[in-house]
């Protein structure tokens, strides 16, 4: 009897081992490739996106990974390529990714790159007369309005800046009825800053603010004395700066040097980041910025910690990259993507259909709506710089 028990135990152990070996053999990896600027003035956005994608993949892998169409489980891995914020390089990077087994790519950082990339994609899915690339791309950072409209293969998980500034200026008007004039500053050669400045200006006028003038500078500029002198002369109640952290800090420091103290400061969404605080926390004190990310929910706090572990910082852009990893996981499972070399084109079509069919996704601040033209409607709030950190100032009801 004892021998029988030992034999049974050995058989059981063998079976268990064989099962776990089978399970091990079936465990696969799916590579998600991101791309964006990892060099140049805006390199920090690429670094943060890569960290956020890796953090998202780690969280997904911790909970077992993703289930593929044939029932096997796969772990997600992330590769991130640098396009140097250059349209030609962006096209080359995407062609490189599309020449592999990848069924989706995440990126880019810069709106000018997205313009070109989305342009080389097939405009209408299934249009046999259009020889554009049939490859789904979902953008995390490129924030210029209306980009996803360019192709049915392009998607974005970026907030609507139009809605953000529409809400913000209405709120400012209601909270500060005594403020009448506004002066604008814009990083004129950067597509996102330039386009958003147009939104800021129109929303300011819509809400009855009088435009006292505007100053322009370039992304690579390092001196702003002339622009700030004009700003000082205008003596407006509000100064709205549509620029990224690097020149925003330059302008804010120059404003301090020249003693320009507006009653209210408004900034660009992209400047609600750690880089602004690292560069000019003192000068940025009080600046109000609408953002689609702040560590105010347990999920957002967890994401911020996780992104930091991978050497990045969570802001509205990298948070979008983090969310995208979970969106992709859901679509892979819903669409039963196989992730095999012989199903690449079918997987791409399924991924496109899956992304296009999304009506709502879960974001770090709550539910994110999806529009018919493949854009996101993200919840947002206003933050202001206070004591060297970003603090929530107001959360609009809608």
């Amino acid at each position, binding site marked *: 009897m004892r021998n029988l028990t030992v034999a049974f135990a050995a058989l059981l152990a063998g079976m268990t081992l064989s099962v776990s070996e089978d399970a091990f053999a079936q465990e696969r990896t799916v590579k998600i490739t991101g791309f964006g600027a990892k*060099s140049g003035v805006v390199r920090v956005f690429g670094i943060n996106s890569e960290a956020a994608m890796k953090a998202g993949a780690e969280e997904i892998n911790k909970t077992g990974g993703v289930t593929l169409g044939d029932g096997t489980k796969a772990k997600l891995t992330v590769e991130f390529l640098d396009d140097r914020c250059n349209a030609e390089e962006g096209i080359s990077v995407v062609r490189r990714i*599309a020449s592999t087994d990848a069924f989706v790519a995440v990126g880019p950082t810069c709106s000018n790159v997205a313009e070109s990339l989305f342009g080389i994609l097939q405009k209408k899915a299934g249009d046999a007369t259009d020889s554009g690339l049939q490859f789904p791309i979902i953008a995390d950072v490129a924030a210029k309005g209306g980009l996803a409209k360019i192709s049915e293969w392009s998607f974005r998980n970026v907030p609507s800046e139009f809605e953000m500034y529409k809400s913000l200026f209405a709120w400012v008007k209601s909270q500060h009825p005594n403020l009448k004039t506004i002066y604008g500053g814009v990083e004129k050669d950067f597509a996102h800053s330039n*386009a958003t400045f147009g939104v800021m200006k129109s929303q300011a006028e819509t809400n009855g603010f009088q435009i006292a003038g505007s100053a322009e500078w370039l992304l690579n500029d390092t001196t702003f004395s002339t622009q700030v002198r004009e700003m000082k002369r205008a003596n407006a109640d509000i100064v709205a700066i549509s620029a990224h952290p690097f020149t925003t800090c330059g302008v804010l420091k120059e404003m301090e040097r020249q003693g320009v103290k507006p009653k209210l400061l408004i900034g660009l969404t992209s400047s609600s980041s750690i880089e602004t605080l690292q560069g000019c926390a003192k000068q940025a004190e009080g600046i109000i910025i609408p953002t689609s990310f702040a560590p105010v929910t347990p999920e957002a706090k967890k994401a911020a910690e996780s992104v930091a572990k991978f050497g990045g910082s969570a802001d509205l852009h990298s948070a979008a990259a983090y969310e995208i990893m979970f969106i992709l996981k859901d679509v892979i499972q819903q669409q039963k993507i196989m992730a095999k070399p012989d199903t690449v084109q079918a997987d791409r079509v399924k991924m496109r259909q899956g992304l296009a069919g999304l009506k709502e996704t879960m974001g770090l601040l709550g539910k994110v709506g999806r529009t018919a033209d493949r854009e996101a409607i993200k919840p947002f709030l206003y933050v202001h710089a206070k004591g060297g950190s970003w603090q929530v100032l107001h959360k609009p009801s809608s």
Partner: protein
Amino acid sequence: MDFYFGLIQIIGVHTLLGLSAYCVLLTGQVSLAQAGFFAIGAYVAGMLTVIAQWPLVPALGVSALVAGATACAVGFPALRVKGLMLVVATVAFGEAVRLFFFNFTYQVQAGNIRLGPHGGEGFRQIRYFPENGWTTLDVMLFIWAVVALVMAGLWWLNRSRAGAVLRAVGEDELAAQSTGINITAVKISAMTVGGVIAGIGGGIFAHYTTHIEHVQFGVVLATFAIAYPILGGLSNVFGTLLAVIFIQGFLIEGLRFMGDWRNLLFGGLIVLAMNVRPRGLLDAGAMLALKRLFFSRKERSDA
């Protein structure tokens, strides 16, 4: 393969840009205006195919003419100055062109969208290639047919009396003038030919990137334009091609896997290449060696 075809497209267009600067460099002039002519070609060709719905080839013809005419017009005042002053003058022209397109808006309504250049936001939807069913291979073959034509033309020019005149002016202006060569006419002609080539290159560039905006045509592009022929060598047109392959194919694309280190290596390798081959990657000595190698093998095989 699409990735490689795409890369070969980029190399082709940058070769045209480099060859446009090559023409001017032959006369001993350093022009940073090529990015401006390239921009003119890009916007003109883009507007003709998108707004006027022209086929691509005539649109490229017009873009070449407009860029060439501009180069000719710019050449007269600009080429009155020399050396560093010419560099400054041509940079100023390039920036003026860039800023013109930065402020230039001309859009027409097409259905529910507006098409055409839109100032600082650029000019999108230049989708002639995909809308007409051109594959990446088709585009690549088209670009290289154009590059081959231009290179053949310049190769012929190099070996003709006109080429000797260009080189004579480039080597020693005073000596050339004393032999009765009209220096101004030669320089303006070189500038015009350079403008024509840049115009064609820009026109193709607009169509394969599908979106153009002023920032793409700045000083960096102008620097690349003259870096190609200088790095490749002025002894013949293939030097420029070799330099473009080295920069676009190897330094930019080949080293992409190196991540952040790529940018450090980029500058270092260019400096190294210029130190190792100060007269260009394909200088007269290298060409002679290649000829000897080629002809001695041919003679051996004939024997």
